[in-house]
C-alpha cells in the first residue's frame, strides 16, 4: 500500500526538469503522490459488503524498509514485548473505565432531553464515530457518553440494511439535512450536515477522520482490539486524540487543500528552498533509517526530502499538518512520537522527531524514521540543520514568507497579477498535487476559527458584506463536486450572476477555480484566466516545489 514512485533518476536540482510546455507548477518528478482524492472516493464506494479487512494484508512498507537497512528482526521482537506490557496494563485500568460507565448509565434516560440541548441543536455539522457494536467513540459536539442511544440507533440502521437487505447504507437525505454513513473496518462513521458539502465531500471527511484514528493506533491495532473484544471502549485508547479529530474537522471545512487533495507550499525564492533542502540532505544522508525529512510552516510545505522509492500521499501530509497544529508545546522542546501514516503504511508506526527549528522561527521540522530509538541522533541532526539554516539566512527568508512581507509578489498575488476583476482563485497542479490560492489561509486566522468554533459551529444566516477566503472556498464546493461528479464530470463551468462570476476548469494538468466580479462575459473571463495562468507559470518556481529530492 506504499506509494512507490517509479524510481526515476532525479537530477539534483529541479532546473532541467521544468519545461515550458508543461502546465504551471508541473514537473516530471513529484515528492507527492498525485492521486486524486475523488479517485479514492470511487474506490471507497466500490468496497463490497465484505468489509475491507484486507487493508492490512498487503505487505508493510515499514518492514520492507527495515529489512533493507537490516533492522527487521530486532524491531519485530521489540514490538511483541511491548504489546505484552500493554495487555498487562489493560487489566489494571479496566476497573476505572467500568466505574466511568456506571456513572453515566443513569443519563441515558434523559437522553431525549439532552438531544434538544443547545450543545447539540442547530449545529451545521455533526460527526459521530462508534464501534460496529454501537459503542460511542467520538462526537464532535456534546458528550458522547450521553449519546449511547443515538449510537444504538445508528448501529441498528446500518446493520438492518446490511443484514436484511444485503446492501450498504450510504446516506439519508431530508429537506435540509444530509446524513452520510461510512462503515470502515470495525468502525461506523456518520456525518449529519446542513452545509452545502456534497455526499462525496462528506465521505471524504469521514475517511480522513478514520485515518486520523488509524494514525494514532495503526490499523493493525485497531482491528486486533475489536477482534479480541467486540465491546471494547475505544475512548480509552484514544484519550487525548479527540483534539486531533476536532481540529481536523475544522481544518477540513476551511482549507481547500482538503477539497482538492493537494498540499500548499510556502512561497519561497527557488534558491532559498534549494539551500534548505541541501542543508537537510547534507546533514541526513548518512542516517540510514530516516524515511522522510519534512519542513513545514503554517500548514504549508517548505521542503520534503525522502528515501528513494517512497513518496508521500497528500492526505498523510495533511495528518502531519494537523498533528503539528494541534500540539501546543514548549517552544524549545523536541518531541518524539509514534506516527502511523495510513497511506504510507497503515500497519505500523514511523517514529517522528518533531521540533520547531528555533525560538525565532516557527517552522517545524519532522524527521520520520523506522527506528524507534533514534531520538538522539535525530536530535543532533536537527540542531545541525537549524544552525546551517541560520547561517545561510534561510530562517529570515522563511519568516518573511510567513509574515507575508509586503515586498513579495506572492503576498498579495491579486494585486501583483493586476487583473482587478479577479476576486479570488485557487489552482491545483495535478501531477505534483500542489495547490496555490490567491489568499492563503494563515495559521492565526485558523486559530481564530477554532475560538469561534468552541462556542459555535451553529448554523448562521449572516449577511456577508465582504467575503473572506473561506467564504470563497465554501462557494467552490458545489463547483468542485460537479467537476468531479462520477457519472458526468464537467470540464468547464462558467456561471455568471449578479453576485459574482465563477469559472471552474479542469484539464489533464490542472484544476482552476476563479471568482470574478458579477456579470462577467465569458470571453473576458477566459482572457483573464489566460493571464492568470501565465503569471502562475512565471512564479511557479517560487510557489511550487518543482523537484523531488532524496537523501
Amino acid at each position, binding site marked *: 500500500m506504499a506509494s512507490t514512485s517509479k524510481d526515476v533518476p532525479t537530477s539534483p536540482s529541479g532546473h532541467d526538469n521544468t519545461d515550458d510546455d508543461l502546465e504551471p507548477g508541473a514537473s516530471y518528478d513529484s515528492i507527492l503522490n498525485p492521486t486524486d482524492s475523488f479517485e479514492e472516493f470511487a474506490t471507497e464506494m466500490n468496497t463490497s459488503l465484505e468489509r475491507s479487512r484486507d487493508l492490512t494484508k498487503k505487505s508493510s512498507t515499514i518492514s520492507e524498509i527495515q529489512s533493507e537497512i537490516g533492522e527487521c528482526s530486532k524491531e519485530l521482537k521489540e514490538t511483541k514485548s511491548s504489546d505484552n506490557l*500493554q495487555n498487562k496494563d489493560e487489566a489494571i485500568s479496566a476497573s476505572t473505565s467500568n466505574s466511568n460507565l456506571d456513572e453515566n448509565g443513569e443519563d441515558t434516560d434523559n437522553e431525549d432531553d439532552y438531544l434538544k440541548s443547545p450543545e447539540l441543536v442547530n449545529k451545521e455539522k455533526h460527526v459521530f464515530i462508534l464501534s460496529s457494536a454501537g459503542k460511542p467513540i467520538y462526537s464532535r459536539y456534546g458528550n458522547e457518553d450521553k449519546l449511547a442511544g443515538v449510537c444504538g440507533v445508528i448501529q441498528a440502521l446500518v446493520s438492518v440494511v446490511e443484514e436484511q437487505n444485503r446492501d450498504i447504507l450510504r446516506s439519508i437525505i431530508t429537506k435540509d439535512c444530509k446524513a452520510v454513513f461510512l462503515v470502515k473496518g470495525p468502525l461506523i462513521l456518520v456525518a449529519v450536515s446542513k452545509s452545502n458539502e456534497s455526499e462525496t465531500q462528506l465521505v471524504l471527511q469521514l475517511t480522513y477522520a478514520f485515518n486520523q484514528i488509524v494514525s494514532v493506533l495503526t490499523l493493525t491495532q485497531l482491528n486486533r482490539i475489536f477482534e479480541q473484544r467486540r465491546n471494547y471502549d475505544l475512548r480509552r485508547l484514544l484519550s*487525548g486524540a479527540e483534539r486531533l479529530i476536532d481540529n481536523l474537522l475544522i481544518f477540513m471545512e476551511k482549507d481547500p487543500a482538503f477539497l482538492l487533495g493537494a498540499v500548499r507550499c510556502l512561497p519561497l525564492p527557488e534558491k532559498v528552498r534549494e539551500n534548505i533542502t541541501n542543508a537537510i540532505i547534507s546533514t541526513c544522508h548518512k542516517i540510514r533509517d530516516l524515511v522522510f525529512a519534512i519542513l513545514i510552516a503554517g500548514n504549508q510545505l517548505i521542503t520534503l526530502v525522502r528515501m528513494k522509492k517512497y513518496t508521500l500521499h497528500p492526505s498523510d501530509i495533511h495528518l502531519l499538518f494537523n498533528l503539528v497544529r494541534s500540539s501546543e508545546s514548549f517552544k524549545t522542546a523536541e*518531541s518524539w512520537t509514534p506516527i502511523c501514516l495510513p497511506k504510507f503504511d497503515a500497519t505500523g508506526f514511523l517514529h517522528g522527531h518533531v521540533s520547531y527549528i528555533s525560538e525565532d522561527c516557527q517552522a517545524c521540522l519532522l524527521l520520520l524514521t523506522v527506528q524507534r*530509538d533514534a531520538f538522539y541522533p535525530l536530535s543532533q541532526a536537527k540542531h545541525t540543520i537549524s544552525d546551517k539554516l541560520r547561517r545561510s539566512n534561510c530562517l529570515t527568508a522563511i519568516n518573511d514568507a510567513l509574515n507575508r512581507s509586503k515586498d513579495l509578489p506572492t503576498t498579495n498575488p491579486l494585486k501583483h497579477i493586476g487583473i482587478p476583476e479577479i476576486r479570488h482563485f485557487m489552482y491545483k497542479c495535478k501531477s505534483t498535487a500542489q495547490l496555490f490560492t490567491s489568499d492563503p489561509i494563515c495559521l492565526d486566522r485558523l486559530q481564530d476559527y477554532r475560538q469561534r468554533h468552541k462556542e459555535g459551529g451553529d448554523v448562521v444566516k449572516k449577511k456577508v458584506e465582504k467575503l473572506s477566503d473561506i467564504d470563497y472556498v465554501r462557494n467552490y464546493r458545489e463547483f468542485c463536486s460537479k467537476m468531479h461528479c462520477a457519472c458526468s464530470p464537467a470540464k468547464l463551468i462558467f456561471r455568471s450572476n449578479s453576485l459574482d462570476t465563477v469559472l471552474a476548469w479542469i484539464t489533464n494538468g490542472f484544476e482552476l477555480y476563479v471568482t470574478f466580479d458579477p456579470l462577467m462575459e465569458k470571453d473576458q473571463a477566459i482572457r483573464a484566466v489566460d493571464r492568470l495562468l501565465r503569471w502562475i507559470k512565471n512564479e511557479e518556481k517560487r510557489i511550487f516545489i518543482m523537484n523531488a529530492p532524496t537523501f
Partner: protein
Amino acid sequence: MAQSSNGTNNFKVVLLGEGCVGKTSILLRYIEDKFNEKHLSTLQATFLNKKLNINGKRINLSIWDTAGQERFHALGPIYYRNSNGAILVYDITDQYSFVKVKNWVKELKKMLGSDIVLAIAGNKIDLDHERAVSLEEATQYAEQVGAKHYHTSAKINEGVEELFLNLTRDMLERYESKKQTEVTRSSRVLVVDDEAPPPSSCCSSFMGA
C-alpha cells in the same frame, strides 16, 4: 548517563504518571514559570534541556515529559532507559493515579534495579480539600521503596523548584559516590579535568611559540 563534558554534569530525568496528573504543568512551571488551566494531553514524549548550578557545579538536566495516556505506556522504556532520575507524579485528588505510580515504581525497579533515583510527587496540593490519597499512605510507600516524596502544585507554584533541585542533588550525590567507589576499586583511574588545557605535545608548543 552522566558524562562530564567540559565540566558539565549531564543527567537524564523522566516524568511518568497517569494522564492529567500535571506532569506537563510541573515542567512548564519549572522551565517557563507559566501555568495553563487547559489540559492539553501530551500526545507523545517531549524532550527539554534545563541548565542549573549546584554548589558551583554546572549541571544540565535532560528532561523527558511523557504522555500519561494508556496507548503510550508500551513506549515507556524508550524514555526511562538510561535515566538517572524519575519523577513519578500523581494527583492527590485521584486515588487511581497513585496506583499508577506504584505500577511505575515496580516497572522501573524491575528494569533498572536501583540505578535510578526516584522522586514521587503528589501534585495539585492547592486542592487539598479534595484529597483522596492520604499523606501518610503516600510518604510511607515512598519510604518503603526508597523514594523521596514531594508535594507540589504547578498552579500556585509550590514545591516545584524544590522537587527538581533535590532530585538533582540526589542524582549528583549518587553519581559522585559511584565515581568514588570506582576510584577506590581501580587505583589507576586517570582523572581528567576538562577545564585544564590540553596536554602539550611538541606540536602544540611549537604552534604556541
